Protein backbone atom coordinates (compact mmCIF):
# COMPACT_ATOMS: atom_id res chain seq x y z
CA UNK A 1 0.00 0.00 0.00
CA UNK A 2 2.83 2.33 0.96
CA UNK A 3 4.54 1.56 -2.36
CA UNK A 4 1.36 2.34 -4.31
CA UNK A 5 1.01 5.65 -2.46
CA UNK A 6 4.67 6.53 -3.10
CA UNK A 7 4.25 5.63 -6.75
CA UNK A 8 1.21 7.87 -7.02
CA UNK A 9 2.91 10.82 -5.31
CA UNK A 10 6.00 10.37 -7.47
CA UNK A 11 3.77 10.28 -10.55
CA UNK A 12 1.98 13.47 -9.53
CA UNK A 13 5.30 15.18 -8.89
CA UNK A 14 6.62 14.10 -12.27
CA UNK A 15 3.54 15.68 -13.83
CA UNK A 16 4.00 18.88 -11.79
CA UNK A 17 7.65 18.92 -12.87
CA UNK A 18 6.59 18.72 -16.51
CA UNK A 19 4.08 21.55 -16.07
CA UNK A 20 6.66 23.69 -14.29
CA UNK A 21 9.12 23.02 -17.09
CA UNK A 22 6.55 24.38 -19.54
CA UNK A 23 6.20 27.47 -17.36
CA UNK A 24 10.00 27.87 -17.29
CA UNK A 25 10.60 26.64 -13.73
CA UNK A 26 11.68 23.07 -14.49
CA UNK A 27 14.84 23.22 -12.37
CA UNK A 28 12.71 23.48 -9.24
CA UNK A 29 11.77 19.82 -9.35
CA UNK A 30 15.18 18.31 -9.77
CA UNK A 31 15.31 15.76 -7.01
CA UNK A 32 19.06 15.91 -6.55
CA UNK A 33 20.38 19.03 -8.13
CA UNK A 34 23.88 18.88 -9.52
CA UNK A 35 24.84 15.82 -7.53
CA UNK A 36 25.25 13.07 -10.05
CA UNK A 37 28.41 14.21 -11.62
CA UNK A 38 30.36 11.14 -12.60
CA UNK A 39 33.27 9.75 -10.66
CA UNK A 40 36.84 8.65 -11.31
CA UNK A 41 36.65 5.03 -12.36
CA UNK A 42 38.68 2.33 -14.03
CA UNK A 43 38.32 -1.25 -15.11
CA UNK A 44 40.56 -3.82 -13.46
CA UNK A 45 40.81 -7.13 -15.31
CA UNK A 46 42.39 -10.31 -14.06
CA UNK A 47 42.78 -13.27 -16.39
CA UNK A 48 44.68 -16.50 -16.18
CA UNK A 49 44.53 -20.24 -16.11
CA UNK A 50 43.61 -22.70 -13.38
CA UNK A 51 45.47 -25.98 -13.31
CA UNK A 52 45.82 -28.96 -11.06
CA UNK A 53 48.87 -28.74 -8.85
CA UNK A 54 49.04 -32.50 -9.03
CA UNK A 55 48.70 -33.19 -12.76
CA UNK A 56 49.39 -29.73 -14.21
CA UNK A 57 46.29 -30.20 -16.36
CA UNK A 58 43.75 -27.39 -16.80
CA UNK A 59 40.67 -27.53 -14.62
CA UNK A 60 37.31 -26.72 -16.18
CA UNK A 61 34.29 -25.27 -14.40
CA UNK A 62 36.13 -23.83 -11.41
CA UNK A 63 34.24 -20.82 -10.06
CA UNK A 64 36.28 -17.61 -9.89
CA UNK A 65 34.97 -14.60 -7.98
CA UNK A 66 36.41 -11.11 -7.87
CA UNK A 67 34.32 -8.49 -6.08
CA UNK A 68 30.95 -8.56 -7.89
CA UNK A 69 32.08 -10.58 -10.89
CA UNK A 70 31.80 -14.35 -11.08
CA UNK A 71 32.91 -16.63 -13.87
CA UNK A 72 33.82 -20.27 -14.52
CA UNK A 73 36.94 -21.64 -16.15
CA UNK A 74 36.57 -22.98 -19.70
CA UNK A 75 37.87 -26.27 -21.05
CA UNK A 76 41.39 -24.81 -21.17
CA UNK A 77 41.10 -23.75 -17.51
CA UNK A 78 41.04 -20.12 -18.57
CA UNK A 79 39.11 -17.38 -16.80
CA UNK A 80 38.67 -13.62 -16.86
CA UNK A 81 37.07 -11.48 -14.17
CA UNK A 82 36.82 -7.75 -13.88
CA UNK A 83 35.83 -4.84 -11.71
CA UNK A 84 34.23 -2.25 -13.98
CA UNK A 85 33.85 0.36 -11.26
CA UNK A 86 37.21 0.36 -9.56
CA UNK A 87 39.10 3.41 -8.38
CA UNK A 88 42.03 4.44 -10.61
CA UNK A 89 44.57 4.00 -7.82
CA UNK A 90 46.71 1.20 -6.40
CA UNK A 91 44.13 -1.45 -5.65
CA UNK A 92 44.06 -4.90 -4.14
CA UNK A 93 41.44 -7.51 -5.01
CA UNK A 94 40.61 -10.82 -3.44
CA UNK A 95 40.19 -13.67 -5.89
CA UNK A 96 38.26 -16.72 -4.77
CA UNK A 97 38.64 -20.04 -6.55
CA UNK A 98 36.07 -22.73 -5.79
CA UNK A 99 35.94 -26.23 -7.21
CA UNK A 100 32.21 -26.80 -7.75
CA UNK A 101 32.52 -29.65 -10.19
CA UNK A 102 30.64 -32.90 -9.83
CA UNK A 103 31.63 -34.85 -6.77
CA UNK A 104 32.49 -37.84 -8.92
CA UNK A 105 35.48 -35.88 -10.15
CA UNK A 106 38.58 -35.35 -8.12
CA UNK A 107 38.00 -32.42 -5.77
CA UNK A 108 40.34 -29.48 -5.25
CA UNK A 109 40.75 -27.20 -2.26
CA UNK A 110 39.40 -23.66 -2.13
CA UNK A 111 41.87 -20.90 -2.73
CA UNK A 112 41.50 -17.26 -1.62
CA UNK A 113 44.28 -15.01 -2.71
CA UNK A 114 45.01 -11.31 -3.08
CA UNK A 115 46.21 -9.63 -6.22
CA UNK A 116 47.61 -6.13 -6.16
CA UNK A 117 47.57 -3.57 -8.95
CA UNK A 118 50.40 -1.31 -7.83
CA UNK A 119 50.59 2.11 -9.55
CA UNK A 120 48.49 0.75 -12.40
CA UNK A 121 48.76 2.14 -15.91
CA UNK A 122 45.43 2.54 -17.68
CA UNK A 123 44.61 2.57 -21.38
CA UNK A 124 41.51 3.56 -23.29
CA UNK A 125 40.24 6.27 -20.96
CA UNK A 126 37.84 8.95 -22.13
CA UNK A 127 39.85 11.92 -20.81
CA UNK A 128 37.11 12.51 -18.28
CA UNK A 129 36.14 10.42 -15.28
CA UNK A 130 36.85 7.04 -16.86
CA UNK A 131 40.59 6.40 -16.78
CA UNK A 132 40.57 3.21 -18.85
CA UNK A 133 41.47 -0.38 -18.11
CA UNK A 134 44.40 -2.31 -16.74
CA UNK A 135 44.99 -6.05 -16.81
CA UNK A 136 46.98 -8.68 -14.94
CA UNK A 137 47.64 -12.31 -15.70
CA UNK A 138 47.27 -14.57 -12.75
CA UNK A 139 47.67 -18.35 -13.11
CA UNK A 140 46.94 -20.62 -10.18
CA UNK A 141 47.36 -24.25 -9.31
CA UNK A 142 44.81 -25.83 -7.02
CA UNK A 143 45.81 -28.54 -4.63
CA UNK A 144 43.73 -31.71 -4.45
CA UNK A 145 41.56 -32.18 -1.38
CA UNK A 146 42.81 -34.82 0.97
Amino acid sequence: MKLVKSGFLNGVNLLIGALLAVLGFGASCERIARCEYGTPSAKFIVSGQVKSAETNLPLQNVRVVMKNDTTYTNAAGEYEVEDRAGMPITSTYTLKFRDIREESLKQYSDLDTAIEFKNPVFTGGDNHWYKGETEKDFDVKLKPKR
Partner: protein
Amino acid sequence: MSVLNIPLKKRIALNLFSRFKKNEYKLHKLNYIFWEATLRCNLNCIHCGSDCKREAGVPDMPVADFLRAIDEVQEIVSPNETMIVFTGGEALVRRDLEVAGLALHKRGFPWGIVTNGMLLDKKRLDSLLGAGLRAVTVSFDGMEESHNWLRGSAKSYANALNAIKLLPQVPDLVYDVVTCVNQKNFHELNEIKELLIACGVKQWRLFTVFPIGRAAEHPELQLEPEEFKTLFDFLAATKKEGRIGINYGCEGFLGSYEGEARDNLFFCKAGVNVASILADGSISACPNLRANFIQGNIYRDNFREVWESRYSIFRDRSWTKTGLCADCKFFKYCEGNGMHLRDERTGELLFCHLKRINEGESALKK
Protein backbone atom coordinates in the same frame (compact mmCIF):
# COMPACT_ATOMS: atom_id res chain seq x y z
CA MET B 1 7.53 45.96 -9.79
CA SER B 2 7.24 45.28 -6.07
CA VAL B 3 8.55 42.09 -4.53
CA LEU B 4 5.01 41.54 -3.25
CA ASN B 5 3.40 41.64 -6.72
CA ILE B 6 3.97 38.24 -8.18
CA PRO B 7 2.99 37.90 -11.86
CA LEU B 8 0.22 35.44 -12.72
CA LYS B 9 2.46 32.92 -14.48
CA LYS B 10 4.77 32.79 -11.49
CA ARG B 11 1.86 32.46 -9.10
CA ILE B 12 0.59 29.47 -11.08
CA ALA B 13 4.07 27.95 -10.87
CA LEU B 14 4.28 28.63 -7.13
CA ASN B 15 0.90 27.01 -6.55
CA LEU B 16 1.93 23.94 -8.49
CA PHE B 17 5.21 23.87 -6.64
CA SER B 18 3.40 24.13 -3.34
CA ARG B 19 1.64 20.86 -4.21
CA PHE B 20 4.96 19.36 -5.23
CA LYS B 21 6.46 20.24 -1.85
CA LYS B 22 3.52 18.73 0.03
CA ASN B 23 4.09 15.48 -1.86
CA GLU B 24 7.79 15.61 -1.09
CA TYR B 25 6.98 15.97 2.63
CA LYS B 26 4.99 12.76 2.39
CA LEU B 27 7.55 10.92 0.29
CA HIS B 28 10.33 12.01 2.68
CA LYS B 29 13.07 10.66 0.44
CA LEU B 30 16.54 11.03 1.89
CA ASN B 31 18.97 12.07 -0.84
CA TYR B 32 21.38 14.55 0.72
CA ILE B 33 23.46 13.94 3.83
CA PHE B 34 25.88 16.35 5.44
CA TRP B 35 28.64 15.03 7.65
CA GLU B 36 30.12 17.57 10.02
CA ALA B 37 33.45 15.79 9.86
CA THR B 38 35.12 18.03 12.41
CA LEU B 39 34.57 21.16 14.43
CA ARG B 40 38.25 22.04 14.14
CA CYS B 41 39.02 24.93 11.83
CA ASN B 42 42.14 26.67 10.58
CA LEU B 43 40.38 30.03 10.35
CA ASN B 44 38.43 32.19 12.73
CA CYS B 45 35.66 33.66 10.60
CA ILE B 46 33.47 36.42 11.95
CA HIS B 47 30.29 35.01 10.45
CA CYS B 48 30.77 31.30 11.09
CA GLY B 49 27.45 29.50 11.42
CA SER B 50 28.85 26.48 13.20
CA ASP B 51 30.33 26.12 16.63
CA CYS B 52 33.82 25.56 15.31
CA LYS B 53 37.09 26.48 16.97
CA ARG B 54 40.72 25.96 16.14
CA GLU B 55 40.88 23.22 18.77
CA ALA B 56 37.35 21.94 19.09
CA GLY B 57 36.04 20.59 22.36
CA VAL B 58 34.28 17.82 20.47
CA PRO B 59 36.73 15.26 19.10
CA ASP B 60 36.49 14.24 15.46
CA MET B 61 34.08 11.42 14.85
CA PRO B 62 35.88 8.22 13.86
CA VAL B 63 35.28 7.34 10.21
CA ALA B 64 34.00 3.92 11.24
CA ASP B 65 31.23 5.49 13.34
CA PHE B 66 30.12 7.69 10.46
CA LEU B 67 30.14 4.75 8.04
CA ARG B 68 28.11 2.64 10.44
CA ALA B 69 25.42 5.32 10.38
CA ILE B 70 25.54 5.45 6.58
CA ASP B 71 25.21 1.68 6.43
CA GLU B 72 22.07 1.96 8.56
CA VAL B 73 20.32 4.06 5.91
CA GLN B 74 21.76 2.26 2.92
CA GLU B 75 18.64 0.14 2.48
CA ILE B 76 16.28 3.12 2.27
CA VAL B 77 18.29 5.27 -0.13
CA SER B 78 19.55 4.94 -3.67
CA PRO B 79 23.29 5.41 -3.05
CA ASN B 80 23.95 6.69 -6.57
CA GLU B 81 21.31 9.35 -6.08
CA THR B 82 22.31 10.33 -2.57
CA MET B 83 24.91 13.02 -2.17
CA ILE B 84 27.11 13.08 0.93
CA VAL B 85 28.87 16.34 1.71
CA PHE B 86 31.72 16.70 4.20
CA THR B 87 31.61 19.95 6.07
CA GLY B 88 32.97 21.37 9.28
CA GLY B 89 34.68 23.30 10.89
CA GLU B 90 37.07 22.90 8.02
CA ALA B 91 36.71 19.39 6.68
CA LEU B 92 40.17 19.31 5.11
CA VAL B 93 41.96 19.54 8.46
CA ARG B 94 41.11 15.85 8.69
CA ARG B 95 43.76 13.78 6.98
CA ASP B 96 41.50 10.75 6.73
CA LEU B 97 38.77 12.27 4.57
CA GLU B 98 40.01 10.14 1.70
CA VAL B 99 39.43 7.01 3.79
CA ALA B 100 35.83 8.03 4.37
CA GLY B 101 35.41 9.14 0.76
CA LEU B 102 36.75 5.92 -0.71
CA ALA B 103 34.53 3.87 1.58
CA LEU B 104 31.52 5.88 0.39
CA HIS B 105 32.55 5.44 -3.22
CA LYS B 106 32.71 1.69 -2.73
CA ARG B 107 29.16 1.82 -1.37
CA GLY B 108 28.08 3.78 -4.47
CA PHE B 109 27.63 7.22 -2.90
CA PRO B 110 28.83 10.40 -4.58
CA TRP B 111 30.51 12.74 -2.12
CA GLY B 112 31.77 16.30 -1.98
CA ILE B 113 33.37 18.83 0.33
CA VAL B 114 32.77 22.36 1.48
CA THR B 115 36.06 24.12 2.17
CA ASN B 116 37.65 27.48 2.85
CA GLY B 117 40.43 26.50 0.42
CA MET B 118 43.28 26.95 2.90
CA LEU B 119 44.42 23.34 2.50
CA LEU B 120 43.18 22.62 -1.00
CA ASP B 121 46.36 22.51 -3.06
CA LYS B 122 46.98 20.37 -6.14
CA LYS B 123 48.36 17.47 -4.15
CA ARG B 124 45.38 17.29 -1.80
CA LEU B 125 42.91 17.75 -4.63
CA ASP B 126 44.49 14.85 -6.53
CA SER B 127 44.34 12.75 -3.41
CA LEU B 128 40.65 13.56 -2.90
CA LEU B 129 39.86 12.93 -6.56
CA GLY B 130 41.58 9.58 -6.25
CA ALA B 131 39.15 8.74 -3.47
CA GLY B 132 36.12 9.58 -5.62
CA LEU B 133 35.53 13.26 -4.88
CA ARG B 134 32.77 14.60 -7.11
CA ALA B 135 31.93 18.07 -5.90
CA VAL B 136 33.66 20.99 -4.25
CA THR B 137 32.33 24.21 -2.80
CA VAL B 138 34.89 26.88 -1.98
CA SER B 139 34.06 29.90 0.16
CA PHE B 140 35.19 33.19 -1.33
CA ASP B 141 34.00 36.25 0.51
CA GLY B 142 35.23 39.22 -1.46
CA MET B 143 38.32 40.88 -2.78
CA GLU B 144 41.52 40.54 -0.74
CA GLU B 145 40.85 42.94 2.08
CA SER B 146 37.20 42.00 2.55
CA HIS B 147 37.83 38.28 2.37
CA ASN B 148 40.74 38.37 4.80
CA TRP B 149 38.74 40.57 7.18
CA LEU B 150 35.82 38.17 7.27
CA ARG B 151 38.06 35.12 7.48
CA GLY B 152 40.44 36.58 10.03
CA SER B 153 43.58 35.58 8.16
CA ALA B 154 45.96 37.49 5.88
CA LYS B 155 46.58 34.36 3.81
CA SER B 156 43.03 33.18 3.34
CA TYR B 157 42.26 35.16 0.15
CA ALA B 158 45.32 33.89 -1.71
CA ASN B 159 44.71 30.31 -0.64
CA ALA B 160 41.02 30.38 -1.53
CA LEU B 161 41.76 31.90 -4.93
CA ASN B 162 44.47 29.31 -5.63
CA ALA B 163 42.01 26.56 -4.75
CA ILE B 164 39.34 28.05 -7.01
CA LYS B 165 41.79 28.22 -9.92
CA LEU B 166 42.51 24.50 -9.60
CA LEU B 167 38.91 23.42 -10.00
CA PRO B 168 38.17 24.35 -13.63
CA GLN B 169 41.20 22.27 -14.62
CA VAL B 170 39.54 19.05 -13.50
CA PRO B 171 37.29 17.72 -16.28
CA ASP B 172 33.71 17.13 -15.17
CA LEU B 173 34.27 18.08 -11.54
CA VAL B 174 31.23 19.93 -10.29
CA TYR B 175 32.11 22.88 -8.13
CA ASP B 176 30.84 26.23 -7.12
CA VAL B 177 32.05 29.26 -5.28
CA VAL B 178 29.99 30.56 -2.41
CA THR B 179 30.09 34.13 -1.18
CA CYS B 180 28.69 35.51 2.02
CA VAL B 181 27.49 38.97 1.03
CA ASN B 182 27.93 41.60 3.73
CA GLN B 183 28.37 45.32 4.00
CA LYS B 184 32.10 45.08 3.38
CA ASN B 185 31.99 43.19 0.08
CA PHE B 186 28.62 44.39 -1.18
CA HIS B 187 30.20 47.05 -3.43
CA GLU B 188 32.68 44.52 -4.81
CA LEU B 189 30.15 42.13 -6.28
CA ASN B 190 30.88 43.13 -9.87
CA GLU B 191 34.61 42.88 -9.27
CA ILE B 192 34.23 39.43 -7.70
CA LYS B 193 32.04 38.34 -10.59
CA GLU B 194 34.64 39.37 -13.17
CA LEU B 195 37.41 37.66 -11.20
CA LEU B 196 35.48 34.40 -10.97
CA ILE B 197 34.60 34.49 -14.67
CA ALA B 198 38.29 35.07 -15.46
CA CYS B 199 39.17 32.03 -13.32
CA GLY B 200 36.77 29.88 -15.34
CA VAL B 201 34.18 29.49 -12.59
CA LYS B 202 30.76 28.46 -13.91
CA GLN B 203 28.62 28.54 -10.78
CA TRP B 204 28.50 31.19 -8.09
CA ARG B 205 26.24 31.06 -5.07
CA LEU B 206 25.53 34.03 -2.86
CA PHE B 207 24.03 34.05 0.58
CA THR B 208 23.53 36.63 3.23
CA VAL B 209 24.43 36.47 6.87
CA PHE B 210 21.70 35.28 9.14
CA PRO B 211 21.82 35.82 12.86
CA ILE B 212 23.12 32.51 14.16
CA GLY B 213 26.53 31.32 15.39
CA ARG B 214 29.16 34.01 15.64
CA ALA B 215 27.20 36.17 13.20
CA ALA B 216 24.59 36.72 15.88
CA GLU B 217 27.18 38.84 17.69
CA HIS B 218 27.86 40.92 14.56
CA PRO B 219 24.57 42.36 13.31
CA GLU B 220 26.59 44.86 11.29
CA LEU B 221 27.42 42.00 8.92
CA GLN B 222 23.86 42.11 7.65
CA LEU B 223 23.04 44.24 4.65
CA GLU B 224 20.94 47.33 5.07
CA PRO B 225 17.47 46.99 3.49
CA GLU B 226 18.42 49.07 0.42
CA GLU B 227 21.52 46.95 -0.13
CA PHE B 228 19.52 43.80 0.43
CA LYS B 229 16.99 44.74 -2.24
CA THR B 230 19.80 45.80 -4.62
CA LEU B 231 21.50 42.44 -4.12
CA PHE B 232 18.52 40.71 -5.72
CA ASP B 233 18.59 43.11 -8.63
CA PHE B 234 22.25 42.16 -9.06
CA LEU B 235 21.41 38.45 -8.92
CA ALA B 236 18.59 38.80 -11.46
CA ALA B 237 20.70 40.93 -13.80
CA THR B 238 23.68 38.57 -13.62
CA LYS B 239 21.45 35.58 -14.26
CA LYS B 240 19.97 37.33 -17.27
CA GLU B 241 23.44 38.27 -18.50
CA GLY B 242 24.33 34.56 -18.54
CA ARG B 243 28.10 34.85 -18.27
CA ILE B 244 28.21 32.89 -15.03
CA GLY B 245 25.63 30.69 -13.34
CA ILE B 246 24.41 32.49 -10.27
CA ASN B 247 22.05 31.55 -7.50
CA TYR B 248 20.95 32.88 -4.18
CA GLY B 249 21.25 30.24 -1.44
CA CYS B 250 18.34 28.07 -0.39
CA GLU B 251 17.45 30.27 2.53
CA GLY B 252 14.36 32.35 1.84
CA PHE B 253 11.19 32.99 -0.11
CA LEU B 254 11.85 35.90 -2.47
CA GLY B 255 8.42 36.96 -3.74
CA SER B 256 8.62 38.27 -7.30
CA TYR B 257 12.34 37.46 -7.37
CA GLU B 258 11.47 33.74 -7.26
CA GLY B 259 12.86 32.19 -10.43
CA GLU B 260 14.89 35.36 -11.12
CA ALA B 261 17.54 35.14 -8.41
CA ARG B 262 17.67 31.35 -8.24
CA ASP B 263 17.30 28.54 -10.75
CA ASN B 264 14.69 26.88 -8.59
CA LEU B 265 11.70 28.06 -6.60
CA PHE B 266 12.13 28.27 -2.84
CA PHE B 267 12.07 24.96 -1.03
CA CYS B 268 13.77 24.38 2.31
CA LYS B 269 14.53 20.69 2.03
CA ALA B 270 15.88 20.38 5.59
CA GLY B 271 14.46 17.21 7.07
CA VAL B 272 12.49 16.53 3.88
CA ASN B 273 15.36 15.27 1.74
CA VAL B 274 18.33 16.48 3.79
CA ALA B 275 19.84 15.05 6.95
CA SER B 276 23.03 15.77 8.82
CA ILE B 277 25.32 13.89 11.11
CA LEU B 278 26.98 16.43 13.37
CA ALA B 279 30.40 16.13 14.97
CA ASP B 280 29.05 14.84 18.28
CA GLY B 281 26.85 12.27 16.53
CA SER B 282 23.69 14.36 16.62
CA ILE B 283 21.29 13.67 13.78
CA SER B 284 19.84 16.85 12.38
CA ALA B 285 18.45 18.23 9.13
CA CYS B 286 20.95 20.87 7.98
CA PRO B 287 24.27 21.24 9.83
CA ASN B 288 23.28 24.65 11.18
CA LEU B 289 20.09 23.30 12.77
CA ARG B 290 20.87 22.44 16.35
CA ALA B 291 19.27 22.48 19.80
CA ASN B 292 15.56 21.66 19.44
CA PHE B 293 15.97 20.67 15.81
CA ILE B 294 18.13 17.66 16.71
CA GLN B 295 16.29 14.41 15.97
CA GLY B 296 18.59 11.82 17.49
CA ASN B 297 22.17 10.72 17.88
CA ILE B 298 24.00 8.00 16.00
CA TYR B 299 25.53 6.81 19.28
CA ARG B 300 22.09 6.14 20.74
CA ASP B 301 19.76 5.74 17.79
CA ASN B 302 19.56 3.93 14.50
CA PHE B 303 19.88 6.53 11.73
CA ARG B 304 17.31 4.78 9.55
CA GLU B 305 14.75 4.61 12.35
CA VAL B 306 15.30 8.28 13.12
CA TRP B 307 14.80 9.26 9.49
CA GLU B 308 11.70 7.10 9.11
CA SER B 309 9.97 7.89 12.39
CA ARG B 310 10.95 11.44 13.34
CA TYR B 311 11.52 14.73 11.49
CA SER B 312 7.84 15.61 11.88
CA ILE B 313 8.59 19.31 12.54
CA PHE B 314 10.19 19.48 9.10
CA ARG B 315 7.45 17.61 7.27
CA ASP B 316 4.56 19.55 8.73
CA ARG B 317 5.47 23.19 9.02
CA SER B 318 2.11 24.50 10.15
CA TRP B 319 3.73 25.26 13.54
CA THR B 320 5.71 28.05 11.84
CA LYS B 321 2.53 30.04 11.13
CA THR B 322 3.09 32.28 14.12
CA GLY B 323 4.33 35.81 14.67
CA LEU B 324 5.20 37.50 11.41
CA CYS B 325 4.12 34.42 9.43
CA ALA B 326 0.66 34.19 11.03
CA ASP B 327 -1.02 36.64 8.67
CA CYS B 328 1.34 36.43 5.72
CA LYS B 329 -0.49 35.89 2.44
CA PHE B 330 2.60 34.16 1.03
CA PHE B 331 2.78 31.51 3.75
CA LYS B 332 1.57 28.84 1.33
CA TYR B 333 4.65 29.39 -0.83
CA CYS B 334 7.12 30.06 1.95
CA GLU B 335 6.01 27.88 4.88
CA GLY B 336 8.00 29.70 7.50
CA ASN B 337 11.15 30.45 5.49
CA GLY B 338 14.34 28.37 5.86
CA MET B 339 14.28 26.25 8.99
CA HIS B 340 17.66 27.64 10.03
CA LEU B 341 16.00 31.05 10.25
CA ARG B 342 13.70 29.92 13.04
CA ASP B 343 14.93 30.36 16.59
CA GLU B 344 16.37 27.03 17.75
CA ARG B 345 14.53 27.22 21.07
CA THR B 346 11.36 29.24 20.53
CA GLY B 347 10.72 28.53 16.84
CA GLU B 348 10.13 32.23 16.16
CA LEU B 349 11.17 33.61 12.79
CA LEU B 350 14.50 35.45 12.99
CA PHE B 351 14.62 36.85 9.49
CA CYS B 352 12.11 37.34 6.66
CA HIS B 353 13.63 37.89 3.24
CA LEU B 354 10.42 39.19 1.77
CA LYS B 355 10.03 41.78 4.50
CA ARG B 356 13.63 42.92 4.19
CA ILE B 357 13.42 43.29 0.40
CA ASN B 358 10.15 45.16 0.77
CA GLU B 359 11.75 47.49 3.32
CA GLY B 360 14.55 48.08 0.84
CA GLU B 361 12.07 48.96 -1.89
CA SER B 362 10.37 51.46 0.36
CA ALA B 363 13.66 53.00 1.44
CA LEU B 364 14.84 53.35 -2.17
CA LYS B 365 11.55 55.02 -3.17
CA LYS B 366 12.11 57.63 -0.49
